[in-house]
């Protein structure tokens, strides 16, 4: 009987570690309603509670991933899922070039790769609304978009060259405890293709859209938020198989599922 109890405790311990490992490096983001730069009709969107990775996925973590899932190695990846620049800063299938740092954010990854990475971890990519929600916080406030200093800081980063070569965690954490949403790399979002503001959208997108090139600027809720304009513009111009030098990702997880 004692033996049995011991076994049970042992198993529980094992389970616990897996659980912790899965949610390791994530912080809880408390959802709310907010007005993103481009929302739905009603402009207010609701974000539910979710967990978010504290840091973007690093080169070292991605090395582990491709070791486990060879189909995402540079020479194996199929053209449907990634363009030619996929992992362009890698020496071979399993190693980075010597100039790259293991704890820099991984870049040159396609949306398909990023999505699969998160799913293999039991997570998913954040939606645009979730990402923007977490990213509108600064060190002290949940919605820092009204502060001039918030915008200035982000724009200063957009001007800084080669920030993707820096390492994670150098920027102070925001009020949620998340690092590097700004200041390092752009990040993939699950529904980046919901941004209909490409030049292309003028001709082929439903005319009723309030996300039109011209009308987009008029309908955007905050004309001063240049940084957000840039992010939406980037998303609007991406295709899922693109791999870019300054585009990485991080994962999130829905609450209340173990």
């Amino acid at each position: 009987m004692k033996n049995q109890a011991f076994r049970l405790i042992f198993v529980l311990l094992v389970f616990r570690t897996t659980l912790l490992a899965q949610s390791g490096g994530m912080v809880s983001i408390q959802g709310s309603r907010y007005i993103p730069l481009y929302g739905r009709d009603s402009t207010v969107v609701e974000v539910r509670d979710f967990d978010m990775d504290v840091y973007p996925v690093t080169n070292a973590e991605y090395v582990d991933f491709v070791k486990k899932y060879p189909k995402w190695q540079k020479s194996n990846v199929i053209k449907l899922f990634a363009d030619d620049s996929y992992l362009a800063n890698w020496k071979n299938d399993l190693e980075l070039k010597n100039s790259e740092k293991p704890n820099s954010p991984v870049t040159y990854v396609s949306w398909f790769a990023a999505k699969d990475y998160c799913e293999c971890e039991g997570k998913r990519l954040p939606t645009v609304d979730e990402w923007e929600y977490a990213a509108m916080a600064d060190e002290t406030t949940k919605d820092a978009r009204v502060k001039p200093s918030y915008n200035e800081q982000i724009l200063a980063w957009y001007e800084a060259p080669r920030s993707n070569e820096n390492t994670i965690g150098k920027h102070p954490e925001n009020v949620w405890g998340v690092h590097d949403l700004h200041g390092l790399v752009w990040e993939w979002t699950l529904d980046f293709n919901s941004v209909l503001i490409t030049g292309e959208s003028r001709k082929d997108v439903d005319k009723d859209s309030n996300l039109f090139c011209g009308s987009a600027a008029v309908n955007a809720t905050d004309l001063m938020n240049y940084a957000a304009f840039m992010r939406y513009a980037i998303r609007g111009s991406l295709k899922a198989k693109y791999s870019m030098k300054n585009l990485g990702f991080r994962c999130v997880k829905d609450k209340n599922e173990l």
Partner: protein
Amino acid sequence: MKGLKNILMVLSVVLAFQSCNFNKKSTVSSAEVYQCPMQCEGDKTYEKPGSCPVCNMAMQAIEKPSEKKSDDGISETSIFNLTSAWHTEEDEAIQLEDLKGKTLVMVMIYTSCKAACPRLVADMRHIEEQIPKENIKDLNFVLVSIDPKTDTPERLKAFAKENLMDGDQWTFLQGTESGVREFANVLAMKYKQISPIDFSHSNIISVFNPKGELIHQQEGLGVDNKETVAVILNLTTK
């Protein structure tokens, strides 16, 4: 006691193997082959090392040109590499690969759409009308819903009947939210739910060859579909 042990064993095995689906279709055959360094016999290669029968030089090992084609002939750019699960309007569970063998004309719509979709659907019908009967049997017109929550197989079936698109050449697909998002990304199609019942979306009709490779895309509403029809005819006429 024994029973508990067994259960625990099973649980730990399940945990250990817990990982996401693995796409087997993209394994590379990187076996080495041998070739004469002077290429006396052109591109000819041998399975075993030896000397060249023409110039007698020792053959060199070269890497087989990396063929990422899978055993069943799906190429790298084929949409049949997607492993997402779908339901047809007849409530059959399928994968995209099950559509292999016919030329595919695909469009993404949602049935509660009042603005662009009826015209997109009309465009599809208009294309279909221009294809001679004997080519139709090699064609599959596929309408994929971007609103998988609302567009159940029953609803898609009703929509098909209503629009006189219930023939064998028409297929309607309901996917999962993530499967639809992925498929849209393959087509470089953008969409966004702008209210509980409405979506904003790009209007693209895509033509795939029977191997699932994208051949042609027509963008816009009510545009001249001559080119699209020509591509389809070219693909279906042997």
